[in-house]
């Protein structure tokens, strides 16, 4: 059996936190702090529910810090030679109440919407208030360098479900044949004025891949 996990990466360079593997399972948490471990985040870094015009950059919205996830491959089962068709989805809806949207970053290419691991970039924003949206080109509040200058680089993540996968990487040129990382998925929560405070119940997001 191949040794594969889903990791969240944070920090100025690259720090890994295992969200799911054969040995462990953790519940991630969207918040306004650049960290992946929910026991460190606690309830100290909420996204502030904005009043009209007082959100990020005087809009009606505040944001979590964006999150970056990858498949990590550290071992191969006997006879396994490659991983391909890496894809991601939600269950089609979000149960975090009114005014809450999950955005996913895309690079604009139909079959390669993920983030090359070499393009990882630390999330930015104001702790305990708001993250900068990954698509932002506002000076001093810039978003993700890999995505922010791409037209239509964001989609509502719940449009991707098991009938309409978000293709992280696909095709012969993007197969994985050794230890390392898949391309990544960048997501971010948006909170509007009608959202309600509190720690919300977990939602499930799914990674799927083919191993050959």
């Amino acid at each position, binding site marked *: 059996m191949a040794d594969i996990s889903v990791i969240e990466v944070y920090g100025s360079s690259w720090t890994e936190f295992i969200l799911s593997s054969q040995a462990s399972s953790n519940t991630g948490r969207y918040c306004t702090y650049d960290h992946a471990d929910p026991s460190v985040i606690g309830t100290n870094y909420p996204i502030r529910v904005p009043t009209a015009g007082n959100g990020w950059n005087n809009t009606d919205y505040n944001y979590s810090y964006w999150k970056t996830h990858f498949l990590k491959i550290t071992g191969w089962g006997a006879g396994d030679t490659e991983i391909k068709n890496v894809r991601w989805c939600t269950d089609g809806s979000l149960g975090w109440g009114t005014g809450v949207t999950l955005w996913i970053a895309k690079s604009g290419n139909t079959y390669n919407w993920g983030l090359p691991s070499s393009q990882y970039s630390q999330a930015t924003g104001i702790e305990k208030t708001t993250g900068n949206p990954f698509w932002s080109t506002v000076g001093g509040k810039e978003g993700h360098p890999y995505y922010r200058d791409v037209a239509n680089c964001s989609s509502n993540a719940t449009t991707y479900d098991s009938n309409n996968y978000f293709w992280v990487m696909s095709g012969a040129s993007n197969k994985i044949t050794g230890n390392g990382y898949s391309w990544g998925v960048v997501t971010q929560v948006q909170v509007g004025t009608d959202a309600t405070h509190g720690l919300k119940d977990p939602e499930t997001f799914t990674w*799927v891949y083919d191993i050959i």
Partner: protein
Amino acid sequence: MRYIEPTPILEGEDALRFIKELVKTNEKITSKTIEEVREKVFSIKFSVIM
């Protein structure tokens, strides 16, 4: 896979042998596909604090 010479007309035992070869070949292809490609799934939970 053994190469089968094209035969314009097959009758009786020849036809039966040809069909058996064809079935055997298809079985091999099907079992190989199932064995070699396996779909794997990771489900991960996320909450949000606001």
